């Protein structure tokens, strides 16, 4: 081996320089951490207009004139919290949509307890979701609304739209898994041979802590090490620290998933892939994707490691609607919602698409609850 041409003095001098810079960062960082930090999330004002058990329906107060007649109901996943769509001012999907004149409702699934362990997918889709939608339809004195699903919420939205197509004016699915027969994502591989019966029969609900750990394991190098190295490097930057803590608050805020819902989702979707084959049964009814005849906008992320493109791109071909569109963004699973760059692409696309599919939109009052 030939001798290194970098002298030891040089290396040591560099290390001394780096340690001096690190010390300065840590000193300033201490001031930042001990200062008042604004780390609150989900600050956009809303009213809880409907409740059933632990499930709430939030209606966001419109910012100005509502420009799309039919309201948009957003259905988030049972994993993590819907607050991700309203993480902070300047990076809030909810605020961006409100500014464009969309009347927004969002389901808050709450925090399941042991009492909820027997709730099934049918209870969520034909129970809570159907009742929430009926409430909104009655409130707006209309027969249909626009539905937008996020991740597992998108899967629920697909099931609902197939079972109750008349109530849905248009459907938007974002990072929504519909085809689970793929090796692109680690979750698909891990769950393929999972004995879900043993887990649900033993533990009941799937605990939020277990979910957090599973998601960290998907990329431990970045999520358990590199992320925090980056945090320390920017510790002197107050805005960075605030944004980081907001994200930490959201990412580890994981409710439990009801056991029976989890059991069916893993068995029927991840293991048997029944949804895309239109063979899945919910509440005794077959979910036939060709019954989805309303306009469909399907958005997914190219670098999504949780719901890879292969899990999303077959949907538009499987539904009965002829008015479908796929949009693949250069981002990951969460980036679509929290990246300010992606939001500049994502939100305008949704707004323009909704306006196009709701051409009979009329301006209404601020509450958006007038009749057609």
């Amino acid at each position, binding site marked *: *081996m*030939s001798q*290194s*041409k*970098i002298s030891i003095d*040089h*290396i040591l001098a*560099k*290390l001394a320089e*780096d340690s001096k810079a690190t010390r300065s960062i840590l000193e300033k960082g201490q001031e930042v951490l001990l200062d008042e930090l604004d780390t609150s999330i989900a600050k956009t004002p809303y009213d809880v207009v409907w409740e059933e058990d632990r499930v709430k329906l939030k209606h966001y107060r419109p910012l100005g004139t509502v420009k799309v007649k039919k309201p948009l109901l957003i259905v988030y996943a049972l994993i993590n919290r819907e607050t991700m769509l309203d993480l902070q001012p300047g990076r809030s999907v909810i605020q961006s949509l409100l500014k464009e004149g969309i009347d927004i409702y969002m389901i808050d699934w709450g925090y399941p307890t*042991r*009492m909820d*362990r*027997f*709730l099934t997918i049918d*209870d969520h889709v034909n*129970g809570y979701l159907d009742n929430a939608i009926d409430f909104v339809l009655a409130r707006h004195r209309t027969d249909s609304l626009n539905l937008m699903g996020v991740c597992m919420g998108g899967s629920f939205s697909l099931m609902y739209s197939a079972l109750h197509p008349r109530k849905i004016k248009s459907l938007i699915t974002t990072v929504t898994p519909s085809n689970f027969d793929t*090796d692109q994502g*680690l979750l698909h*591989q*891990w769950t393929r*041979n*999972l*004995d879900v019966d*043993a*887990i649900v029969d*033993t*533990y*009941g609900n799937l605990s939020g802590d277990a979910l957090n750990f599973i998601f960290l*394991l*998907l*990329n*431990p*190098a*970045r999520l358990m*090490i*590199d992320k925090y*190295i980056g945090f320390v490097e920017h510790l002197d930057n107050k805005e960075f620290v605030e944004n980081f803590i907001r994200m930490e608050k959201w990412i580890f805020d994981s409710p439990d998933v009801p056991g029976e819902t989890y059991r069916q989702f893993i068995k029927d979707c991840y293991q048997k892939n029944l949804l895309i084959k239109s063979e899945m049964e919910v509440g005794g009814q077959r979910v036939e994707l060709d019954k989805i005849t309303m306009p469909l906008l399907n958005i997914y992320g190219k670098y999504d490691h949780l719901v890879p493109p292969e899990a999303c791109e077959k949907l538009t071909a499987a539904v009965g609607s002829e008015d479908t569109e796929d949009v693949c963004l250069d981002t990951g699973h969460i980036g679509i919602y929290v990246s300010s760059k992606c939001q500049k692409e994502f939100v305008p696309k949704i707004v323009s698409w909704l306006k196009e599919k709701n051409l009979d939109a009329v301006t209404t009052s601020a509450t958006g609850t007038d009749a057609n």
Partner: protein
Amino acid sequence: MKQNPFSNLGVDPMVAGWMKAASVSLGEFGKQWQQFNQSSNQSGTNSKKGTTGPDSLEALLKTWRMVSSTFSHPDAFNSQVSGLGELPSVMMKFAQDQLEGFSNVQQQMLDKIKNSGSTGLPLNFGMLDKHFFSGWKTFYQQELSQYLHIPQLGLNRFHQEKLHQLLDSFNLMQSTVGEFIAVLFQPVERSFKSLQDKYLELAEKNELSDNAKDYYQMWIQILEKDYASFFKTPEYLEILGKSLKAMAEFKVKRDEIIQDLMADLPIPTEKEMNELYKEVYRLKKRVRDLEKKDAGKQQ
């Protein structure tokens, strides 16, 4: 017939005489005790007829009378004493049998210990870090676990068996999860080795960086790639499945014991609460379905 060892000492008439005298004196004592007993029964101090203390003493005295009358006859005494002469050899044989049995058991245990190493994985020190947990688990399953599966007897047999099952599942869970954690660290070890190789490669090409951050970035990328491919391997998927199964089995056994203990306390158990939750869920669902049907009819 063997010679009576005591015959030369002229002991027979002496012992017979002593036995006779003892029998007479104890007989007198017994008669007096009986009289006392009868009078106290009449006065009501011993309200229950046949109380334990006096009955036992009477039985004892009767037995002694019988024994002493036997020994007061020289012939009977002789036959008893000659029998006593056999006692040492009988005791010796008895002790010999006991000792043989004990040493056989000990030999079995020593043979088992001697052969136990051959049933596990290679336990040479070179592979110890990689196969410690799996080696221990194999050793435990083949050598020790069987003792926890011996059927139990008696009133507490079910509880005892549950406790043994809990111990067994705990040991298996611990070793399986230990193996899982050890496996999780394998990419970290490999990444350090890869980084060293990369460092040498760069040194060969004189492309070494003077910035520590560059090496960190190199290491993180190596580690990320290694984990991404490692998590898809059958080895990882197998140990993941085994760990989840072992943890679930341990929880089931532990909860059974806890619920048994709680059965005596005024606290509802998880099983009872689950049954209640299920009942409430069914009722709520029925009410909702009826409400919907009713709403549909009204429309």
